[in-house]
């Protein structure tokens, strides 16, 4: 069982979501909050509550929400490489989840993330409880298939998938690559137990698309 303490923080984005300075403020708050907290190797889910945002421009998303994703992805890219810090956002083991997103805002986020061939996770957040996530933006077909196979599972390893879905004719190494890709994209969290990586969805369940 993967446990992480603390593993979840939420940040309420102000209603003003026009322009890059507004995006940078949200990013700064999220990174500051995340930097203050100790968390284990499973990382920290950062739920950005966009309930008050009814209009967000691409500059806002590019300056705020996208770099938050990059912070987590950079951590994944550097894991095991010995690198510590590069670029303009710190590499933190974050898993951004964008919550209570208005349809128009979601549409703009889709433009920005899919334009870079990246996915993002959106979910409801109510009374401090994070609901099931949906993946938007771009996701490779093989990864979509993997998400569909594991979306209700608590946790999973590549060996389990190879055994359980043997009809798929996918080797454990290939399953491991897919799970690792989903981890890099911050859709799955992971922790090492013995020789195996155990993966679990960033939100309780995840599905792809609307």
């Amino acid at each position, binding site marked *: 069982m993967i446990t992480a303490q603390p593993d979840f923080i939420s940040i309420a984005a102000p*209603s003003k979501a*026009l322009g890059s*300075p507004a995006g940078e403020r949200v990013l700064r708050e999220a990174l500051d909050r995340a930097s203050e907290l100790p968390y284990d190797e499973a990382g920290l889910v950062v739920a950005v509550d966009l309930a008050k945002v*009814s209009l967000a*421009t*691409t500059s806002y998303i590019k300056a705020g929400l996208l770099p938050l994703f990059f912070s987590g992805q950079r951590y994944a890219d550097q894991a095991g490489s010995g690198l510590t810090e590069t670029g303009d956002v710190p590499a933190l083991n974050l898993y951004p989840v964008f919550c209570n997103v208005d349809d*128009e805002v979601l549409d*703009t986020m889709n*433009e920005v993330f899919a334009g*870079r061939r990246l996915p993002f996770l959106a979910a409801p957040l109510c009374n401090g409880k994070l609901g099931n996530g949906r993946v938007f933006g771009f996701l490779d077909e093989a990864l979509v298939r993997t998400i569909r196979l594991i979306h209700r599972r608590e946790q999973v390893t590549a060996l389990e998938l190879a055994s359980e879905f043997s009809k798929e004719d996918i080797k454990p190494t290939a399953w491991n690559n897919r799970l690792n890709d989903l981890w890099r994209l911050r859709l799955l969290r992971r922790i090492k137990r013995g020789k195996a990586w155990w993966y679990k969805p960033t939100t309780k369940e995840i599905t792809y698309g609307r």
Partner: protein
Amino acid sequence: MILDSASSEAASQLAFDNGWTALRPVGFSEATLSGVIDLSRAAFLAGESSREEVLNLFTSDSLARRVCQETMAFYGGRFDASRGGDFIFSAPRLELWMVRSWDCLGDDFQLFIQRFERALRQNGFGERYPKVLVKAFSEMVENVLRHSSPIECDSAVGVVGYHVVNGSADYVVADLGQGVLSGLTGNADWAHLQDEQAALVAAARDGATRFRGEQHGFGFKMVFKSFLERAGVLSLRSGDGVAILRGNMDSKVATTCSCAHVPGLRVAISIAVNGDAQEIPLDSLA
């Protein structure tokens, strides 16, 4: 004759060739928001006497004259973002704003955007569609701040405004910056562009961007998306080039021509709920 985007381009050419007094006999009977802002922009840059000539094209009590006065004042830096009590949450059919830094997108600007959205809602655009339109408008406004200056984090002055009547809307974003060609050719991917006309089509139709590695620059994709299944009109003027694009995300038809050189970019957008979109006259000048 109506002073719209096209005739403003012709009028500024006439003025550049023959002096601004050459506009006196033209006799505009009506004017649109884009026509007035565009000609005011050209006259503002040409100097004091030109401004007076253009102002005198409009009758003393006309809405067009007020728009002209306000436009020139904004370009001159005379802008007050505060609005009176009841007006803040009203739905005016016509309003102008000025931007020149990210600070201009504060709470007052947000309220301005909300007034535009409200005006659309009260004039036959339904509940959901106004949100799509104000999103595209906001992207165009941000373009001024992101792209009008060659210096990063700097911006030229821009005048922005909207005009809504029952089932039709115009919005305009016009700055005094570097224009599109100069911005795009700084990106090696688009360095081959030869003139403003080609640069406008590249930016509006082909997603050309000033920053290398960035997708869908200038936010025009949002504009075409906002037209939904309708055929809106996007009329662009940058430096000495003009491009008019009609259509939506599925099909875009561009026509281009040259015109008198006016520094900066003017974006004029017209959309109608039903039928063909065309610029809306402000009032009669006759």
